[in-house]
């Protein structure tokens, strides 16, 4: 397109995600009609259940993850991580490590580790066993330095200084405190309570790590388990001392991310350094213990909430005083009153620094924490006022975008119906703590953007042999990226799903946005659609010349290609049409089209639990989620993703949480025998509902929103069952008994 006929521009707001943390920015895009998704009724593939196209590779163990990469002459590297939160390395026997048979290199990394798990040395060897021998031979002698690893330790007057400016961050405040306090005073009832959430670990089954394949020369290949395949070459360029464009980044499959895998990471930097020095491929995947200590996490928080309302349940005043526990980072916490509207709110949030690794993004950074506190406080107030738990939620959702409130209200009704609310006896006060099985129900709401932005470059290729591929250097965290790329392209070209191959996971393919903040699908799918429609137009154009028929008349259908402007339309098979292409086939590019995606993914979750007030045992019996998703691309994968987020919230609510001994400075649960993920025996009945009342013909990402409300819903259900209001996650039997006053 020449300069003079450049289209008009318009400004739109899109999410910007840095390391998984979402914010909003305004960008300029072409103001042209960007195409539209076909009517839902006419879709053959999209909005259906599509088994993922890489499923056979995964279920047969053939899918290759970074952990599985093997290269000729490859050595295995291990990190020695600091066992103390702050120390000085007095002695490190690098020579002894180098003398261990099989060890090829041993390097020191840090003389004064300032956080628990900070790497202090690295060893690489011909075998995993020899690398571990090498680590033992380092026999480090550490001098303990003062540390702070918990809230009390970091905030006491004589606390060791973790940050340059002290351990308490500047308060971020919002609202008028005097007004909020006046509103609290004028309320019919108010509550004050403190809610605590622990640090949660991503616990990706594939740990962080890389394989760096540098064997001399000016090129390298770096395999990385990352949420941003096209984003890490520049980081690797420095330690490898190569041009970024000479580094091929690869990430065919990855074993989970959940927000914690951006960038090359410390481990990646070290592996690059080792490979550069050795001129041999280096395999460096964190061990499980190292992953717990240095792989990032969801920040913890302590939130004190004062909340007051009118007799009919309108929220009038709120004062929220919160602290974030993000290790050496600032942590994240969505602003209270979270998604609800309160007459007058004042909030003050401060970070508390500790000698722990910095928290990272994890599925809806800051939102599950805020949701747990707000939803708990809301129920406490509802009981104080004697207002129905469903009603108080409907009254207080007052988003400026009215459609979201409508969505929450209908989703609440649907969730209530699925969870059996109508027949439930405890709607305005908790049930009695009697018997051995008290049944309770809890509700909670979530909200997220889920819109996309520019940044994905997609190519669709049609070959003369009839094969079709859709290419982008993006990644699949387990969300089914390949499947919807293939489905969108196949839908557009009238092909079966198997007729299109999606190729991703390479920095040599087109650029992609990083997968954080639920932006991938809404950024990528429009670009795939654009590339596929362009391919279709080029194909029609080509056929019109070959067949001497108007290009506009071509229809691409499962039965074949027809030109309905031909005198006697005949069906041409796809293979036959492609055979007329020139030898290089056909290539079409696609970019982001904002009209194909939208922002806004409200959801409601409900939980039903059974509590034994004698033992404090909680069993989650049933979880329900009703989730707005815009136009569903693949219903099967969407349900898996939504349900998976609910199960992660189940873990947050009932079992997970980093435990650190403040005196010893050790993490007491840095592996899966003590860090308790939900397993097969704890999985409740799950009802996952795609909100089909959301009729938007636009794609919305939903990686984050269903991870938000689950913990609040479960905590509320436990309190509803028998009055056991547990204000600190995870809800373990001891805390239930304490809440019931049975133990102190």
């Amino acid at each position, binding site marked *: 397109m020449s300069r003079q006929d450049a289209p008009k521009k318009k400004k739109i707001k899109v999410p910007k995600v840095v390391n998984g943390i979402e914010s909003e920015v305004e960008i300029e895009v072409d103001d042209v009609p960007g195409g539209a998704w076909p009517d839902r009724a006419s879709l053959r593939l999209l909005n259906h259940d599509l088994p*993922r196209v890489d499923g*056979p590779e995964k279920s047969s163990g053939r899918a290759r993850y970074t952990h599985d990469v093997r290269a000729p002459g490859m050595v295995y590297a291990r990190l020695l991580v600091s066992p103390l939160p702050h120390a000085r390395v007095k002695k490190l026997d690098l020579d002894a490590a180098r003398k261990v048979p099989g060890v090829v290199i041993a390097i020191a990394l840090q003389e004064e580790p300032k956080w628990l798990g900070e790497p202090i040395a690295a060893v690489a060897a011909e075998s995993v066993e020899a690398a571990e021998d090498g680590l033992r031979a380092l026999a480090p002698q550490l001098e303990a330095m003062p540390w702070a690893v918990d809230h009390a330790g970091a905030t006491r007057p004589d606390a060791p200084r973790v940050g340059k400016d002290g351990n308490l961050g500047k308060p971020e405040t919002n609202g008028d405190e005097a007004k909020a306090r006046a509103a609290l005073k004028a309320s019919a009832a108010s509550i004050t309570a403190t809610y605590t959430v622990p640090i949660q670990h991503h616990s*990706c*089954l594939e740990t962080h790590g890389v394989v760096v394949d540098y064997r001399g020369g000016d090129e390298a290949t770096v395999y990385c388990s990352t949420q941003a395949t096209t984003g890490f070459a520049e980081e690797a360029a420095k330690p490898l001392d190569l041009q970024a464009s000479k580094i091929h980044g690869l990430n065919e499959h990855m074993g*989970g991310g959940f927000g914690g895998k951006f960038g090359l990471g410390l481990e990646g930097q070290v592996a690059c350094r080792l490979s550069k020095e050795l001129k041999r491929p280096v395999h460096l995947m964190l061990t499980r213990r190292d992953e717990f200590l240095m792989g990032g996490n969801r920040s913890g928080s302590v939130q004190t909430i004062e909340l007051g309302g009118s007799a009919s349940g309108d929220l009038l005043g709120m004062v929220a005083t919160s602290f974030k526990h993000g290790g050496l980072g600032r942590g994240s916490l969505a602003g209270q009153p979270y998604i609800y509207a309160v007459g007058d709110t004042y909030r003050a949030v401060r970070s508390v620094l500790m000698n722990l690794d910095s928290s990272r993004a994890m599925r809806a950074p800051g939102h599950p924490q805020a949701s747990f506190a707000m939803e708990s406080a809301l129920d406490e107030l509802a009981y104080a006022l004697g207002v129905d738990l469903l009603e108080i939620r409907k009254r207080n959702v007052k988003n400026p975008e009215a459609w979201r409130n409508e969505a929450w209200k209908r989703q609440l009704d649907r969730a209530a119906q699925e969870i059996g609310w109508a027949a439930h006896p405890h709607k305005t006060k908790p049930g009695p703590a009697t018997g051995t099985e008290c049944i309770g129900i809890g509700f909670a709401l979530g909200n997220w953007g889920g819109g996309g932005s520019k940044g994905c470059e997609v190519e669709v290729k049609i070959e003369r042999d009839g094969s079709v591929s859709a290419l982008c250097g993006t990644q699949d965290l387990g969300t089914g990226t390949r499947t919807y790329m293939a489905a969108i392209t196949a839908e557009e070209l009238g092909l079966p799903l198997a007729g299109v191959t999606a190729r991703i996971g390479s920095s040599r393919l087109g650029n992609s946005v990083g997968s954080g903040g639920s932006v991938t699908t809404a950024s990528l799918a429009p670009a795939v659609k654009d590339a596929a429609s362009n391919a279709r137009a080029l194909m029609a154009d080509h056929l019109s010349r070959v067949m001497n028929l108007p290009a506009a008349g071509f229809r691409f259908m499962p039965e074949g290609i027809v030109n309905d402007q031909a005198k006697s339309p005949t069906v041409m098979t796809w293979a036959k049409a492609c055979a007329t292409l020139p030898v290089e086939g056909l290539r079409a590019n696609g970019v982001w089209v904002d009209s194909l995606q939208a922002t806004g993914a409200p959801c409601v979750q409900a939980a039903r639990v059974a509590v034994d007030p004698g033992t404090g045992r909680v069993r989650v019996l049933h979880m329900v989620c009703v989730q707005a998703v815009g136009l569903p691309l693949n219903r099967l994968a969407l349900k898996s993703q939504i349900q998976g987020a609910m*199960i992660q919230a189940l873990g947050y609510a009932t079992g997970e949480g980093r435990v650190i001994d403040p005196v010893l400075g050790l993490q007491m649960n840095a592996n899966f025998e003590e860090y308790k993920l939900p397993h097969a025996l704890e999985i409740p009945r799950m009802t996952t509902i795609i909100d089909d009342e959301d009729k938007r013909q636009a794609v919305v990402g939903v990686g984050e929103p269903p991870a938000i409300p689950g913990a609040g819903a479960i905590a509320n259900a436990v309190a509803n069952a028998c009055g056991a209001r547990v204000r600190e996650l995870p809800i373990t039997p001891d805390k239930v008994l304490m809440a019931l006053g049975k133990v102190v």
Partner: protein
Amino acid sequence: MAKSSDRDSDGDNAADLSRRRFLRGAGGVAAGGVIGPALLAGGARAAPVTPIPLAAAGPEELAGLVEIELTINGSPRKLKVEPRTTLLDALRTRLEPALTGTKSVCDRGNCGACTVLVDDEPRYACLQLACDLRGRKITTVEGLGDPASLSVLQQEFVAHDGQQCGFCTPGFVVAITAALKRDPRASEADIRAACAGNACRCGTQPQIFEAALAAGRRLAEGK
């Protein structure tokens, strides 16, 4: 019925029991039989390789790098391991070409991602010593089917979306394969018990149960 405890290293045969006693005594440095001095000094690629026959009934002394033969997915495979090399590390790092379908996640027997079949019984490969398994029949996920000819269970994993990131999938597939072999009519409770030791972080368990029950129905009907 399958219990999750079937799958840890507490087998009830004599070899397992003797190894358990030994592991306790050795405080975490594991070897099949007796630890040799060369092993304590660290395994060496330069060390002489000793070909050794089938696992002996009584105590045997193994040290350094030894060449063993394992029967993996029906084929004899020769590989060089140290006495302390686990089956997991042997499969993933000692075999040429490596078999990487068996995943290393916790490396200490509490996630199930490395589940393999040893004589058709599910076992955590990270808790088995490779040299102990001479003469035993080892089946990994790769031995159950390949993308072009998936097993019935693998097909149902695909159909029901019993996998998201897929990293835990091989372990679940192997564990449930063993359960269905024992009883294709296994109930959902049986299936849950059979994979109670398998961790899945994506939260795919409900679809895995569905896939297992669907596969069981097909296997019971001989389809």
